């Protein structure tokens, strides 16, 4: 049962301080939704936790809830979904999915089943360049189904998704949290389902 611990993290871009001495924890089964206006540093915070950026001060650790032993390398226990979909346009949906699976600690979930769950089964052999933005986002979300990484780091997961896509995403998220997964999400869409353990962290205010 993993637990995320963030202590006293601060990060500045150039001479402008973006994240100032931020500390919080995240237990298994919890969702933390990061809100705040654009450019306040939501993506920067996600990148700090994913290890893409190195904080000036503070520490970020993913460890076991019980004995506190740190899970290394952290990159095997997290799944990053960036602003862009990380898909190769000239490849088909299935080929993209198979490579994305390589990049995270994969589980035995069948890629075709994942595609059908996000409603892309019929287009599995079509090159991604023929997809609409919403379909590309669903394909990127489908890759999250293929990993057993406990920590999900999602940057604007719902953007360019239609109503049905958002419902699909929230189901996926709920199932992940029930399976003792954790998620950190930066987004503007309010979550419709009232997940019991959803906490909000607003950047910009003195949190």
């Amino acid at each position, binding site marked *: 049962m993993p637990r995320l611990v963030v202590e006293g993290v601060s990060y500045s871009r150039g001479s402008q301080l973006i994240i100032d001495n931020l500390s919080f924890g995240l237990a298994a089964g919890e969702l933390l939704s990061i809100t705040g206006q654009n450019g306040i540093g939501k993506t920067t915070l996600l*990148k700090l936790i*994913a*290890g*893409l*950026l190195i904080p000036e001060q503070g520490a970020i650790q993913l460890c076991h809830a019980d004995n506190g032993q740190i899970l290394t*390398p952290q*990159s*095997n226990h*997290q799944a*990053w979904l*960036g*602003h*862009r*979909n*990380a*898909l*190769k*346009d*000239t*490849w088909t949906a299935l080929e993209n999915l198979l*490579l*994305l699976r*390589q*990049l*995270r600690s994969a589980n035995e979930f069948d890629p075709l089943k994942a595609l059908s769950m996000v409603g892309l089964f019929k287009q599995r052999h079509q090159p991604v360049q023929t997809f609409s933005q919403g379909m590309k986002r669903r394909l990127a979300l489908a890759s999250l189904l293929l990993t057993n990484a406990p920590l999900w780091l999602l940057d604007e997961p719902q953007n360019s998704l239609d109503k049905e896509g958002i419902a699909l995403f929230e189901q996926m998220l709920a199932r992940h949290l029930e399976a003792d997964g954790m998620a950190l999400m930066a987004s503007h869409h309010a979550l419709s389902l009232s997940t019991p353990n959803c906490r909000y962290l607003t950047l910009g205010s003195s949190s």
Partner: protein
Amino acid sequence: MILFWRVLKQQLDLAYEHKTAWLNPLLFFALVTLLFPLALGASTSNLAAVAPGLVWITALLATLLSLETLFRDDVADGTLELWCANQPSLLVYAYAKLSAHWLLYCLPLVLISPLLAYSLHLPMVALAVLMLSLLLGSIALVWLGAIGVAITTGLKYNSFLLALLVLPFYVPVLIFGASAVEITTQGLSAAGPLYLLAALAVLAVTLAPFAVAKALKLSTS
């Protein structure tokens, strides 16, 4: 290791999509070689004397030009960010990416170089050594140049900056490569420079990907 072959296959498939791309360095190489006789006059003695240097400089510039597009597509569609988030595989990605680039862009250069060198009246005896020196040298050029490309991805007008950063490090490769061919034309054995060239290639292949991985992480932040 499977990830290495998978990414290598992926790169080769991707390059297969836009097939003409791998021809560009070859066309550049042939075109520039055409310019030399026009400029230096077609007399055999003139050209033969400088042929080794000319072929090597053209191959070096062709490699440098082909390096620019190394990470551009991955940065654009966000896959690089994914690789950077997964630290151990970033190194594998760097190795695979560079090997694929070398296979696609530099190997054809090496294969076509005897033809162009012959057109510059390079003595026949030196053609084999030319190919060997280009083979080893282009490995060092790609791996060393990749560090400069990784640092300058995402910057504007980075082609000049890339040349400025990387050309000083190309000097040893050029010296050993060109002199290997020149020594053979004088009838001596070119073992010395070729061994040094091979040493440079091995040094570049082992050390450069670490710097490339670090630079990629910096430029995506």
